[in-house]
C-alpha cells in the first residue's frame, strides 16, 4: 500500500510534464480547431537542441540547457505552423492532420540522423536531493519539474487572461472571422499561439529528459500518444482539464507500473482513454470555447 502511494506521488509530480504537453495540444486545438500532431516531436526536438549548449560549453549549468530548449521549442512551433498550417486551407482538416503526422516523422528522423540513433544524457537539477515528509520521499528533481511546470502554467494563464495577446487569442478561438473584422491579425495570432505552445513544449521536453536521465527519439511517438490521451481526457480545448488530466495520468500510470509492471502499464492507460471516450467523451471539462 505504502509503495502505491509513493508511486502515486512520484507519478503525479512527473505528470506535470504530461500536463504541459496536454496544454500545448489543447491550446492549438482551442484556437484553430486542429490538432498539431507534431507537438510532442517538436518538444523533444527542442530538448535536443538545448543539448547543443552543453556541447558548446561543457561546464554550462543545467538551467542554460533548459532555457535553450524552451527557446528552441518556440522556434520549432513557429516552423511547424508555417509548414503545416499556414498554407493549407482551413477547410481541409485532413490535410493539416496528415502534414503534422508527416512532420512528426520528419522531426524524429532528423533527431535519429543528428545523433546517430544513440540516446543522449540529459542534465538534471537537484537530482541528488531527497525530501522526506510523513514517511514518503520526494525526489528533488521531480519537485523541481512540478514547480517549473506550475510556474509556466501560471505564466500562460496570466498571458491568456491579462494581456492583449491573450485576449486576441481567445477572441480568435471563439470567432475567427469576427476577430478579423475587429482588426485582429488572425495569421499572426495563430503563429504566436504555436510559439507559446512551443515554448511550453520545449520546457516539457527538457524536464522529461531531466527526470528520465536520457533523451531518445523513441520517446516521440509514446509521448505523442500520451499527450493526446491527456488532452482528450481533460477535454479538447480546456486548459484546466489538461492540467488535471496530465497529473492524473501521470499518477495512474505510475501506480499501474508499480502494480503490473512496465510492459502492461501502457495497455491500462489506453483502456483508461477508452473508458473516458465511452462514458464521458467530452472529457473532464468540456470547454466553454465553442465555435461553429
Amino acid at each position: 500500500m505504502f509503495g502505491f502511494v509513493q508511486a502515486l506521488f512520484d507519478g503525479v509530480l512527473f505528470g506535470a510534464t504530461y500536463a504541459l504537453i496536454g496544454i500545448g495540444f489543447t491550446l492549438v486545438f482551442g484556437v484553430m480547431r486542429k490538432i498539431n500532431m507534431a507537438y510532442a516531436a517538436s518538444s523533444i526536438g527542442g530538448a535536443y537542441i538545448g543539448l547543443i549548449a552543453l556541447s558548446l560549453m561543457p561546464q554550462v549549468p543545467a538551467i542554460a540547457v533548459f532555457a535553450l530548449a524552451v527557446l528552441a521549442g518556440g522556434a520549432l512551433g513557429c516552423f511547424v505552423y508555417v509548414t503545416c498550417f499556414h498554407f493549407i486551407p482551413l477547410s481541409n482538416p485532413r490535410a493539416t492532420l496528415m502534414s503534422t503526422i508527416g512532420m512528426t516523422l520528419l522531426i524524429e528522423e532528423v533527431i535519429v540522423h543528428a545523433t546517430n540513433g544513440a540516446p543522449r544524457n540529459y542534465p538534471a537539477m537537484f537530482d541528488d536531493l531527497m525530501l522526506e515528509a510523513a514517511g514518503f520521499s520526494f525526489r528533488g528533481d521531480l519537485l523541481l519539474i512540478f514547480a517549473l511546470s506550475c510556474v509556466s502554467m501560471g505564466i500562460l494563464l496570466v498571458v491568456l487572461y491579462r494581456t492583449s495577446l491573450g485576449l486576441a487569442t481567445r477572441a480568435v478561438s471563439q470567432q475567427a472571422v469576427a476577430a478579423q473584422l475587429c482588426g485582429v491579425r488572425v495569421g499572426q495570432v495563430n503563429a504566436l499561439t504555436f510559439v507559446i505552445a512551443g515554448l511550453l513544449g520545449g520546457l516539457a521536453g527538457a524536464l522529461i529528459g531531466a527526470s528520465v536521465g536520457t533523451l531518445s527519439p523513441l520517446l516521440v511517438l509514446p509521448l505523442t500518444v500520451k499527450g493526446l490521451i491527456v488532452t482528450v481526457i481533460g477535454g479538447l480545448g480546456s486548459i484546466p482539464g489538461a492540467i488535471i488530466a496530465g497529473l492524473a495520468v501521470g499518477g495512474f500510470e505510475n501506480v499501474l507500473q508499480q502494480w503490473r509492471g512496465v510492459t502492461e502499464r501502457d495497455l491500462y492507460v489506453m483502456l483508461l482513454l477508452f473508458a473516458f471516450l465511452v462514458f464521458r467523451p467530452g472529457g473532464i471539462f468540456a470547454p466553454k470555447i465553442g465555435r461553429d
Partner: protein
Amino acid sequence: MDFVFGLLQIIGVHSLIGLSAYVVLLTGQITLAQAGFVAVGAYVAAMLTVLVGWPLMPALAVAALVAAFVAMTVGFPALRVKGLMLVIATLAFGEAVRLFFFNFDYQIAKGDVRVGPLGGEGFRQIRYFPENGWSTLEVMLFVWMFVALAIAVLWWIDRSRFGAVLRAVGEDELAAQASGINLTAVKVAAMTIGGGLAGLAGGLYAHYTTHIEHLSFNISLAIFAVAYPILGGTRSVFGTILAVVFVQGLLIEGLRFLGDWRNLLFGALIVLVMNVRPDGLLSLDAWRWAKKKTGAKHGAA
C-alpha cells in the same frame, strides 16, 4: 527476380491495408486503428495454420472475419465521438492491440519444438508457404489475387447506392441524416469492412514474412495505412493503389541508395504533398482528365 516478387508482395499487402483505411475514409473518418486489425488478422491466421494445422484459405477467411468483428465492436463506442477524437480513439485502440500482443503468450509443443506467439519475441516459424512448396512468384500472385478481388468489390460498391451513401456521410452528416441515413450504422459498416480487409492483409503478411511481432504493427504502420488514401485521394480506389506504389516502390525501394535518409524523405514528402495538393495526388481534375482520355463513360458513378 525474387527481389521484385518480394517487393510486389509488400505492395500488395500494403494496398489491402490502404484500401481498408480508404473505405473508412469515405465516410469522413480518419482511422489510425487499421494496424491493430492487421495484427489481429496476422496472429489469428498464423495460429490457425501453425497451432491447429488448418489450410491457408480457411485460416485467412476466419482471420478476416475475426478482424471485422473486432472492428465492429470497437466501432460502436469509438464512433460516438467525432472527427479528431475518433483519430485519437483509433490510435489508442491500435496501440492497445499492439500492447496486448506484446504480452501475449500461447505456445504448444510440436514434436520437440515449442511454437506459437511468445510476447515480445513474437511469433516465429510461420512456415506454411515453405512447408507446402510455394515459390515467391506463387505467393506474390496469391496476394495480388486478393488485391484484385478487393479492388473489384470496392469498385462495385462505389457504383452502388451504398457507395453513394458512404460518400454522402463523408460529405455532410446533417444532410445525410435529413435524407434518412443512419450515420452510426453506415460508419460501423465501413469500419467493419475495413477491419475485414485489414485482417486479410495481416493473415497474408504473417505467412510471407514467417515471423511476426508486436512491433510490426506499430503506429508507423497505422500512419502508413491512412496516409495511402489521404495521399491518393478519395475520388477512386486507384488513388490509394497509386500512393502505395509510389511510397513503397519509389520511396522505400527506389531510393534505397539514399539509405537511412529515405524515412526522412517520407516525412518531408507528406508535408509537401499536403501543402501542394491537399485533396490528394489524384485530385478531382486529374481524375476527370484521366476518365476523358480513356473514354470511360460516367454512368451513374
